[in-house]
């Protein structure tokens, strides 16, 4: 059993709980999103499937609430507080994340890693 370069990697599911930072009237999460069913998926540098219209984390600010919670650039957001994010417009995604009465958002994200390739290979034996 050996590592095969180029072999498809599989996703690890992570639960991320972000505690928003209050700044006056604003609640800050400290990351940016890209994607959505109304966006051009070809522009997304993080996805393999160029028809993937999911919501991706395009930036994470250093030391901000998202980074502290373990969110990483390139993560794909699958759910926010139980709401599906795989088939939403960009603006719908934004709204789900920035509800004024919610101090905490719980995300379900998927993330690719070198190690998941190993785990997959190990499971096959």
């Amino acid at each position, binding site marked *: 059993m050996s590592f095969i370069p180029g072999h498809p990697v599989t996703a690890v599911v992570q639960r991320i709980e972000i505690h928003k930072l209050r700044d006056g009237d604003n609640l800050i999460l400290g990351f940016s999103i890209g994607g959505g069913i109304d966006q051009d998926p070809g522009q997304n540098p993080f996805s393999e499937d160029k028809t993937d219209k999911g919501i991706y984390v395009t*930036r994470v600010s*250093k*030391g901000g609430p998202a980074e502290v919670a373990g969110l990483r650039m390139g993560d794909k957001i699958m759910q926010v507080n139980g709401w599906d994010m795989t088939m939403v417009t960009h603006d719908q995604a934004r709204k789900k994340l920035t509800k004024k009465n919610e101090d905490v958002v719980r995300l379900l994200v998927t993330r690719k*890693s070198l190690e998941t390739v190993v785990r997959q290979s190990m499971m096959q034996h």
Partner: protein
Amino acid sequence: MKRAAVGETQSSVSAAEDLQTYSRREWKGNTTKSLLIRKGYEAIASEFNLCRVRGDNYCALRATLFQVLSQSKQLPAWLHDSDISKWAKEMHSDFITEWQFPFETSMSKLQHLEQCLELLKNKWQEAVQYKSLEDREHMCQHVFRGHDEEYELLEALKFLMLRTAIQLHSDMEKGSDVPEFCWLLFARDSSKCPKTFFTNHLRHVGFSGGLEQVEMCLLGYSLQEMIQVVRLYKCDTEEFITYYPNDHKNASPLCLLTEDDGHYNVLVPKKSSKFDAYGRPKWNQSSGGQPSITTCL
């Protein structure tokens, strides 16, 4: 003894420059590859600037060390509680005897490794004391100018990787839980155990070879850091951003960039990024000029 002033030509890590400018200069033309690489640069250009790292086989270690010294807020627990120069004596003599240094030394290899480890701890302690960005930058300029001191620090990192590999292998043999990259590290025919890992891989790092991806995981794990690498040739795949290793929770990652998994450069946060130091967006608007929207939250 005359010492030359710290100049650009001697520096092992360049001053920060704009990613877009660099990208357009280095990747002219419209081949599929150029377009892909430039797309990758553009994806992160508003958030980071680039510091070019001296392109020898130490570059991955050098880039990581640079980020450690310029960004650490405190001495890590594992370093704080240890007299790490003693670790050299604890190391099996076979490894010490075979160690390669990139410089001349009049002391024994053991003594020199002790010195390297001591230097790493001292430099790290010194770095975390500086509160201002300017002082940190000045310190890094002084360290990264291609003198023996820089290489002693890099050799210390290699030592830490070896020590960690030995520990992890021992844990694996006992059946204890180990991070997943360990399986990969010791699954290679050329590196079934720490001895062959050292003889065939680690001792050549800086000389005839650099770090493979699984060794980047070992480096990150040894330092208890997470190394975030933007891999430009993997743009448009899920490996565009890869974390080495992936399981270190709540770490502020050390950010590097590579076009090809061979040479590594350093990414520093852009001062004019959309977020200030507290993660507050400076303005809420779509990234101008790009066909797809990204929204700061």
